[in-house]
């Protein structure tokens, strides 16, 4: 099976963080606890990004997700305080949702993971990867991603203005 070195141990630890945090988000009755589990899960994903040598995206994950989105969600939980502890966490179709989720998992398992299963020889994976400098160049290179980059900027501006307009008190 998997040989135990620093990388595989890190992978196991971060995977447990990611999936355990996800389970905590979905099942926790108190939403503040759910938000803290979400932070744990996002942190685990950031660790997986580091293991996949995408250090810049790991830093963005910590800054944007944990630093901004998770805090925004905690703010929303506190602003809707009376809804934080509902007596019924799940709706009436929760068993149907469970069937759908498990079915989806089996589908992904058979359709996507089984064809690449057992590919244990990772020696063919290129050891040298593109760096953060290459990512920065690619995002502003006229032949690569400058147009999607600008569209993303406009989307963020539009989302910010929209959020302010929607959440503003009309009185």
């Amino acid at each position, binding site marked *: 099976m998997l040989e135990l070195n620093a990388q595989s141990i890190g992978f196991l630890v971060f995977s447990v963080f990611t*999936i355990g945090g996800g389970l905590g988000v979905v099942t926790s009755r108190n939403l503040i606890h759910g938000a803290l589990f979400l932070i744990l899960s*996002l942190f685990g994903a950031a660790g997986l990004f580091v293991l996949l040598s995408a250090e810049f995206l790991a830093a963005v994950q910590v800054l944007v997700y944990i630093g901004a989105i998770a805090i925004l969600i905690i*703010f929303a939980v506190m602003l809707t305080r009376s809804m934080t502890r*509902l007596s019924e966490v799940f709706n009436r179709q929760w068993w149907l949702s469970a069937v759908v989720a498990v079915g989806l998992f089996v589908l992904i398992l058979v359709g996507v993971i089984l064809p690449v299963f057992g590919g244990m020889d990772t020696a063919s994976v290129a050891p040298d990867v593109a760096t953060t400098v290459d990512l920065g160049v690619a995002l502003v290179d006229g032949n690569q991603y400058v147009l*999607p980059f600008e569209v993303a900027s406009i989307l963020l501006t539009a989302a910010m203005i929209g959020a302010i307009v929607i959440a503003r008190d009309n009185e």
Partner: protein
Amino acid sequence: MVPLWMYLLVAAALFCIGAYGVLSRRNAVAILMSVELMLNAVNINLIAFWRYLTPQNMSGQAFAAFVFVIAAAEAAVGLAIIISVYRSRRSVVVEDVNLLKG
């Protein structure tokens, strides 16, 4: 290195947990958190495929960066809508928000 299918397995499990949360939770904020989990699973998949298949080409990381942007926009607008609904209906339970129901 850890083989590719293990990353795919973690991402698939996270995506299905998030899908279950979206389908079964009653609180809109919890649904939004579950959507964030699903987007994270997609990002893990994108970066894993980038690292194992085309590590010289930046497309995987660039797409993951765009998913970050979409996630941030979605969280901002979604939470604004939730707070607006809470202000007018005094509830964030999605079954209570039935104004457009025929």
